[in-house]
């Protein structure tokens, strides 16, 4: 995938003007992770109400791909059913970004946001919903991302 294809107008726009950037006070889910290889950081906050994502925000530092990916993911899940969010896959994220052929070094940048989201869902399922079966499945999916 060439740089011209990666750094399209839309990716740069989300990088420079991230939507849903910030923190939620007293969120239902708060999850942070970093990529040890490059130091990219990401924290996501979610509120869940009536089995829907009532609010979602993120903060982070990192490259255009990781930050745009996080911002676009928040837009994708805002207001959606909890079940839908649980089922999100790697392909959904890459489709959403329009980035399909990233090399092994850069695909991690694109998927960090999904990893953070899934880890957050895991804690929520365990602590609040006591649904260990779904939690274990999510945990496995998160660790399989990269």
């Amino acid at each position: 995938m060439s740089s011209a294809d990666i750094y399209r107008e839309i990716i740069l726009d989300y990088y420079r003007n991230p939507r849903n950037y910030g923190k939620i006070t007293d969120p239902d889910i708060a999850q942070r992770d970093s990529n040890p290889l490059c130091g990219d950081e990401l924290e996501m906050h979610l509120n869940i109400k009536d089995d829907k994502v009532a609010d979602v925000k993120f903060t982070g530092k990192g490259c255009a791909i990781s930050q745009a990916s996080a911002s676009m993911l928040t837009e994708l899940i805002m207001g959606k059913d909890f079940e839908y969010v649980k089922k999100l896959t790697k392909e959904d994220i890459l489709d959403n970004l329009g980035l399909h052929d990233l090399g092994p070094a850069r695909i991690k940048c694109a998927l960090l946001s999904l990893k953070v989201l899934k880890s957050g869902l895991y804690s929520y399922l365990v602590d609040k919903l006591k649904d260990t079966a779904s939690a274990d499945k999510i945990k496995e999916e998160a660790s399989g991302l990269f």
Partner: protein
Amino acid sequence: MQTSFINIENIRNDFPILKRKVHKDKPLVYLDNAATTQKPIQVIDAISNYYLTYNSNIHRAVHELAEEATLAYEATRDKVAKFINAKNREEIVFVRGTTEAINLVAYAWGRQNVNKDDIIVTTEYEHHSNIVPWQLLAKEKGAKLEYIGVDDNGELILDHLDKYLATGKVKIVTFSQMSNVLGTITNSEEIVKRCKKYGVRVLIDGAQSVPHLKVDLQKLDCDFFAFSAHKMLGPTGVGILWARKELLQNMVPFNGGGDMIREVHKYETTWNDLPYKFEAGTPNIADVIGFAAAIDYLDRIGMDKVREHEMELTKYALDKLSQMKGIVLYGPKDVTKRGGVISFNLGDIHPHDLATIIDEDGIAIRSGHHCAQVLMERLDVSATSRASFYIYNTKEEVDVFIKSLNRAKELFKL
């Protein structure tokens, strides 16, 4: 094609990898030398010749192959000693790399000499390898780890050192002779002088300096010195720890096993002589032998020439880079105070994005925190891009690099 100091065309012909293309048809422009350098054919041949003609374990067997291998391995020790002007060959210990050398000192010297409430002093521009081993030691012993700060010019604030030394609690001061991010050349002799007044031990991390500057241990007068072969044309997996003989004699072994013993009984062992006490197990024979060829190569060019070439190239690159709109350059501006390592940020392009873009033009640079997150915090950035030069880099390559940076700016609409 060349700076006025060395014949780059001849040098480049010795490096087969420099002939390859990347991304189909782009000539490789390798500017990631602070991470590892490329290897000349002489080094590759030395390693392959060992495996092809006299592969054997060293020190023990009496057959001819073993004798040849032992001679070649030990000849490297002499070359290393001469290269850094060490007094005694038995002060040269072969390890895996700078990281292992520093860990060896933190373990084998540190655990005997650092106690509760003692102070270990390092600096804000250290590589993680010169921070983490000391954190482990400090935590284990209840000692304190303190940092010499970095000023806005990228140089160490030596007043901080004086402040810590004055407490009388400092046991060791450990610092890099050249920053792997800023390129800053540390005023090492001055630091050693101040430490000596208080009887404080000094470790110098020479991973970035030995490949690029003439290093003279007699002048430096430190207690421990560490560096790696792979950053100076040699193979990976070989590092050097030099330490004063009397210190090595009093240190406990780092690893126990074969070759480091004199006599082993069921419950007691006596240690082999220096340096073998610290070289347990079959060492990295082939790569140590390869390292000798790397030292020969640098000796043939002359370290003064290497330095002059890199200064000229760095000046050329800094002049061009500093004219770019939106660039932030880190480290000293004066090329006599820095090595050929240039860290920068360009507008709001994240270093990983920048490295991805210019990689398409065949240019290999490093992006990220460079294993120096303490310094990143000090500079208040999460990452930088870093270009670093060596003997085979040319001004034409710098031009290609600058052109590619401009393409990145266009892509990011800067």
